[in-house]
């Protein structure tokens, strides 16, 4: 059985379901990222796991104990869950020194003084804060403050680490550095991590599995590769990475775009063919230009982005984005070209 198990977890604010029947299991030592746009329910889910929010339905267990259950009307208070949590706004206490911040949870647990000293020191050394331990966290940069928060969570030796957008208050160059530090610490301590973010590259770099959410509903759960390579629906496809879409009509084994009829680049799934229309989706770097054949369009814009050239091709009402490396030949602005969809995917028109 999985280490952390969320089953049928539901949270309503008024009549709106912020989280709707969410199932998720996390193995010991696994890092799972919850990814989605703001308001999708990912932070609410994390707060339910932490114990700050009650459930409107479902159950959460860790190991062999139930920590939140609507049916049993039982909620283990957050202070008794033995979790470590890192917040977006750092939440380090400005009236305590860096050391006292990290020692606070240990003092609450009434550990012997030598152990408090030893564990705080260890956590501070792992996060490169030992030299500023006696200083005020207010004198540290955002990255420094977040390391204090991380050290505080580590010192607990938590059963589970909860990270709520820990990097989004940081400057971009710190963000990448901290990302590696977190990954490094996870490898060393083998924590189970539940990580909330709206940044897909963060989720890709850090996690073993990603859960994509939208409107309180899970869209897909899978490894970063699966999420990127085989998105379950149009939303996931669009949310992860760059994407181009064409709305096509499907009739008699052919597809129609902007009044012209083509042979489809691959046979569409039968249920979509039966429905008579679909989205044809592709990554911009998986579309090729051809002089003969392919969906016909006109190049409207061409921008050099260093290594990559970014094309905007008009096909009827739609605009298709194509990216090629700067060594590959391509059409000029105003020229007509054919678009070959090398790795096409099909998604239903609604939803």
């Amino acid at each position: 059985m999985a280490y952390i198990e969320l089953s049928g977890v539901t949270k309503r604010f008024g009549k709106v379901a912020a989280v709707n029947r969410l199932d998720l299991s996390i193995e010991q030592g696994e890092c799972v990222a919850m990814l989605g746009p703001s308001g999708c329910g990912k932070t609410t889910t994390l707060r339910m796991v932490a114990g700050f929010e009650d459930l409107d339905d479902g159950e959460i267990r860790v190991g062999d104990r139930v920590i939140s259950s609507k049916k049993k009307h039982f909620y283990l208070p957050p202070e008794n869950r033995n979790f470590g949590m890192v917040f977006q706004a750092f939440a380090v206490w400005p009236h305590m020194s860096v050391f006292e911040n990290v020692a606070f949870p240990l003092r609450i647990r009434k550990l012997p003084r030598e152990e408090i000293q030893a564990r705080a020191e260890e956590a501070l050394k792992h996060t490169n804060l030992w030299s500023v331990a006696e200083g005020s966290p207010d004198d540290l940069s955002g990255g420094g403050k977040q390391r204090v928060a991380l050290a505080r969570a580590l010192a607990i030796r938590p059963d589970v680490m909860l990270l709520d957008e820990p990097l989004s208050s940081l400057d971009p160059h710190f963000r990448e550095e901290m990302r590696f530090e977190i990954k490094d610490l996870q490898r060393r301590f083998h924590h189970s991590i539940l990580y909330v973010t709206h940044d897909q590259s963060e989720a890709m770099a850090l996690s073993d599995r990603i859960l994509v959410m939208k409107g309180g509903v899970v869209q897909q759960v899978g490894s970063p590769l699966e999420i990127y390579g085989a998105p379950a629906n149009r939303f996931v496809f669009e949310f992860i990475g760059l994407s181009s879409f064409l709305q096509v009509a499907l009739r008699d084994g052919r597809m129609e775009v902007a009044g012209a009829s083509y042979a489809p680049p691959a046979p569409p799934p039968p249920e979509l063919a039966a429905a008579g229309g679909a989205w044809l989706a592709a990554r911009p770097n998986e579309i090729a230009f051809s002089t003969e054949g392919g969906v016909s369009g006109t190049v409207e814009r061409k921008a050099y982005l260093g290594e990559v050239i970014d094309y905007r091709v008009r096909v009827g009402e739609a605009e298709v984005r194509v990216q090629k490396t700067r060594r590959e030949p391509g059409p000029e602005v105003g020229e007509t070209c054919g678009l070959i969809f090398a790795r096409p995917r099909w998604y239903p028109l609604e939803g």
Partner: protein
Amino acid sequence: MTTAVPAAQPRFGTAQILLALSVAILVIVVAVPVLLIFFNAFWVQGQFNVVDVIKVLSQHETYQALLNSLILASGVTVTGTIVGTFFAWLVTRTDLPFKGTMKVLFLVPFMLPSFIGALAWKMLLSPRSGYINRLFMDLLGLDGPVFDIYTYGGIILVETMYLFPFVFIQVAGALERMDPTLEESARISGADLFTITRKITIPLVMPSILSGSLLIMLYSMAHFGTVAVLGIEVGIYNIPTLIYEKIHQSAGSFASIRTGTVLASVLVVTAAFIMWLQNKVLARGKYQIIAGKSFRPSELKLRGLRVPMLLFCIAYIGFTIVLPTVTIFMVGGLRTYGLPFTAENMTLDNYKFILFDWQLTRDAIWNSVSLGFSAALITMTAGVIISYVIVKMKVRGKGILEFLGMLPFSVPGSVIALGVILAWSGKFGVNIYNTVWIILVAYIARYMAFSLKANSAALEQVHDSLVEAARASGATMWQALKDIVVPLVRPGMLAAFFLIFLPALRELTVSVLLYGPTTRTIGVAIYTLNEDGETVYSAALAGIALIIIVFGESVIKRLFKVGRKG
């Protein structure tokens, strides 16, 4: 720093005129009176004299007044801080029902004049004739009163009711702005709510608690009305009431004026010290605890205490706001003070009499309205000019202005009044003592700080480039001021006007030291009528004053709501 405009013009330019004008206003209105007080206290017969000052302070009467001020101020500070912090926590951090309404209601005491409250409490709890005391004496057959309001405890109780919002506002604000994850991270670290409150929440809002309680101390120290109504009768004087007593008895005798100036000097020094301490607390405690994106703070579930706590709040508000207000209106409607509240004893004649027939009260209402209006208008205008020089102009010597402008913040009303008497009763060729003009001058000095604060805040929002663009388009300095700056700071000016007009309407401390036979203000009239035993007329006038104040406050609220939308 280059002083572009003025340095290029060696002649006497607009900037210099404005600066000279501003300095002149502040020196004449604010600095001279305060300096005269120190001068009179320490300079006797042509020489500096500290021995006499100590002699004056060690007289039993003055020493006792100093001690009383300290006792009362400390008592009010302690109780007010506890009450204010508790209610602030209750309306921000628990699931108390009707929290929003309660929060507004707890701020009501701010707009009620405390001496009117003291008057009401005198009617309710004076040892022999107080309604509550009599009720219990009749009901339970007691010999003595249940509670004697003419005591240190009574004065502290009444002042607490009107001063606790200083702490309430500061602490509620801090608790609301505080990032809730600071507390959540403590919870997930294993701390229970009690530990979090003790180790995280209270230390983080401590600067706000302290700064609020220092404000209570500052006001209580210099507070006249409540002690005058409840203390003088039984010989409890604090510094401002003793100053009042000295000046009134003296009819200008040198010895009492000296005692007054010595007491006033002590008050100024103490007030300045408290202000300095408050600034220090605020500067040291600038923790960055402001929330970013965040969930609402976790509320303590009161569970079984939810309804009792609500009832407690309602009882508190009923007891401290509704009961005194109702008492004022009821007593104001009695045919004779002391009669029971039965239908045949009630009448509206008192209200009619003081509004339309009695010269004394009609004068008082007219004086207060016209004084308040003129003081507000003059102070607002002067405030704009001075703030403009302080905030916007690059002229040398504006540091003096900043200092002079902040000075009135730490100068209590009774000190200003005494200083104004010293400055304007003929010593320097102008004698306006016993006229309405001396009150006007004192009001301007007292409220200048309000105007500077509101106008500086508004002016800081107007970026320099707006004026520079006007000058570049060919406007002179005056045209730029008139067409660009004034329209943009109009909301600030309006705020300043009402910040002065409303308090001036109910002013007592300053005018009670300055009034003459025909220059009573509303506050003075209420106070003296009560002293003279005309309790029902005093109450009726107090009722009228309350109506004017509440009406004025709601007009402002509406005005600013509309202004903000536009």
